């Protein structure tokens, strides 16, 4: 059974259709990324999933429980951070966690609070007022409150906002370790590099519709392998390779040749024989950014099938 399931979800706000017939599902232990340009409807989708807003049509189910009808069971399995995690700055970190623990109805709240404080590394500053916390610490407190009820689904909207690179890496590792224990993570972010490193599957949203949903790996390589060769005279190299390796192109001295790993030695011999100066060879994968941009701009990537 999928942990999160959206079925034909639409949202109309003031006459404008923000989300149009959205359907997606997240499996147990999966880290699912949610991408889209500004105004695509990502934040609205997240707010619908956590119950802050109601869909105009369609249903949202968490572990099989419809969030509109079986709210308690649905939200009981959920932990979330929506945009900046606003906590009460006039309370201490511990008091904030106690506040949320009371609403979650968890037994042994004192121990659980210390547990989550350890997980996010806030144990030492737990009794300071939140107004003295740095942005990174507030972010970590936000993760802590999301983890209090031992949720099966974590919904995160821009969770690494304000974290330094060390913090981001810690966060990534935390998400991966949670996923390994069977927790599903649904994360929406602008940082494509983060999504690339953290997620298993990714959906791209544009103008309220899902453009594509696939595995991260697949999206980056487009199912095709390429090699990048840095040469002195790119144009000449392309001319030489055009026949044997169709689809070769060149950009700023880097020749991109569609070829498998096994063909690399032969490729290099061809170039060397033609006395092309070679400075470097490496396998090439599109970054997620390029794949994302080309998708959302409606331009088909050469060689990427089925977009």
């Amino acid at each position: 059974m999928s942990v999160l399931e959206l079925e034909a979800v639409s949202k109309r706000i003031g006459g404008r259709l923000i989300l149009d017939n959205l359907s997606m599902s997240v499996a147990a232990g999966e880290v699912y990324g949610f991408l889209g340009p500004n105004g695509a409807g990502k934040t609205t989708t997240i707010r619908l999933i956590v119950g802050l807003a109601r869909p105009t049509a369609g249903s949202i189910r968490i572990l099989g429980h419809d969030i509109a009808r079986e709210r308690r069971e649905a939200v009981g399995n959920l932990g979330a951070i929506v945009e900046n995690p606003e906590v009460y700055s006039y309370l201490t970190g511990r008091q904030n966690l106690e506040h949320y623990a009371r609403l979650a109805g968890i037994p042994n709240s004192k121990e659980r609070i210390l547990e989550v404080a350890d997980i996010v590394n806030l144990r030492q500053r737990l009794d300071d007022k939140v107004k003295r916390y740095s942005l990174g610490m507030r972010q970590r407190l936000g993760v802590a409150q999301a983890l209090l009820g031992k949720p099966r689904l974590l919904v995160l909207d821009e969770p690494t906002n304000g974290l330094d690179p060390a913090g981001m890496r810690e966060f990534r590792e935390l998400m991966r370790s949670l996923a390994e224990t069977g927790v599903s993570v649904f994360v929406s972010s602008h940082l494509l590099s983060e999504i690339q490193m953290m997620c298993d599957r990714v959906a791209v949203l544009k103008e309220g519709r899902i453009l594509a949903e696939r595995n991260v790996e697949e999206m980056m390589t487009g199912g095709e392998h390429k090699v990048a060769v840095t040469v002195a005279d790119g144009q000449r190299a392309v001319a030489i390779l055009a026949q044997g390796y169709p689809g070769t192109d060149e950009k700023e001295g880097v020749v991109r040749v569609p070829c498998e790993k096994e063909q690399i030695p032969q490729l290099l011999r061809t170039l060397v024989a033609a006395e092309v100066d070679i400075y470097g060879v490496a396998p090439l994968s599109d970054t997620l950014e390029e794949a994302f941009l080309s998708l959302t701009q409606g331009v088909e990537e050469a060689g990427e099938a089925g977009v």
Partner: protein
Amino acid sequence: MRLVFELWQVCINEWTKLIRRKRLWVALILAALIVALFAYTTHEDAASALATQSPGAVQQQIQEEKAQLAQFQAQPQTANIKQMESGLTSELQSLQHQYQQLQHPGEWQQTVRQEIQQDKQQLSTPAATPQDRAQQGLVKVDLLQLNYELNHGVAPVLPWKTSVYQSLQHFLDIVSSIFLPLLVVVVAADMVSGETTSGTIKLLLIRPVSRTRILLGKWLAALFATAVLTLGTCAAMLLAGMAIVGNTGARAPQVVGIGYQFVTSQLAAMQGGNSIVAIPQVGHASVLPIWEFVVLEMLLITLGMFMMATLAFFCSVLFKSSMASTAVAIGVVIVGNIAESLIQKKFMALLFTSHLNPANDWTGQSAQTFHWSLGLGGGLLVMALWTLVALGLSLWKFQRQDILNA
């Protein structure tokens, strides 16, 4: 059972947040200031009463007037002077009579019996016009008080002494129309809008607890804070007053439950009064010692403040910004008060500002203002309606609201 437990948990949360925010402490400081103001005015009134009404003071006045009379008598006796002399003489007579009474306070029962006789005589003549009936109604009220004084052995308060209950009753009336409501608004008007403004509402609502329970918990915490503020301020004023003027006049009679019958009279209008004559009805009236009345008045004012808190709470649900909700709540109180003094129509009795001090409904004072005899029961009913409608609308809006921009 889980409902109660969850609600209790929400209340604990909300109270913890309330006491750590500045607003509650600001309200407490303002309350302390008003208590200090009451203590000061009571002290000043007591001092002035002592200075002008004590037997010594009256005796001094008598001496001064005698001296003045002697001065006039020494001058040539014109018609003007003779008039001044006769005026002074009659003043002297009443002052000396007053002095006599002050010298013999123990004989008050005699005076009371005499007054009862006079009242009964007035009632024996048939009442022709509505004004006569009104006058007779007032006499009946007076009779109730006099009989109470006689039967319960309640001596009247000596003129140079101050009854803390009298001055508190007067002060409470003033304070309950604007000041206490403002205190309540300061505390209650940002219970929800404060969290919307700061964004903490998002994390508050992503919980298994239903929105209804969260809102009810907030409301109950606001009511509790209101009760603490109102009763605390009133009790502090009473204690401060007692510390200054003691406990005189605690058992003085207060008549409650006076109904009114309203009769239009053209004659009254022609004679320069109001065309509507209010005729007091003592059929359901009763008499309480004033200390009991003041304590009950404090509880009734607390109920009035509960209504106010619920209205301020509704503003905080209606508006996203805590500044807007506070401003609107304060504005409504002030506009209501201004309207009350300008518009003297019957329907004004249905406005919530008319019932912030329900003790006025009980004594019938508000009936005289609005020409509508609601009584305590009617007043409480109006308050309950305002409270329930405001709470109901708050719950409805909060339950359905999309939180998109908080």
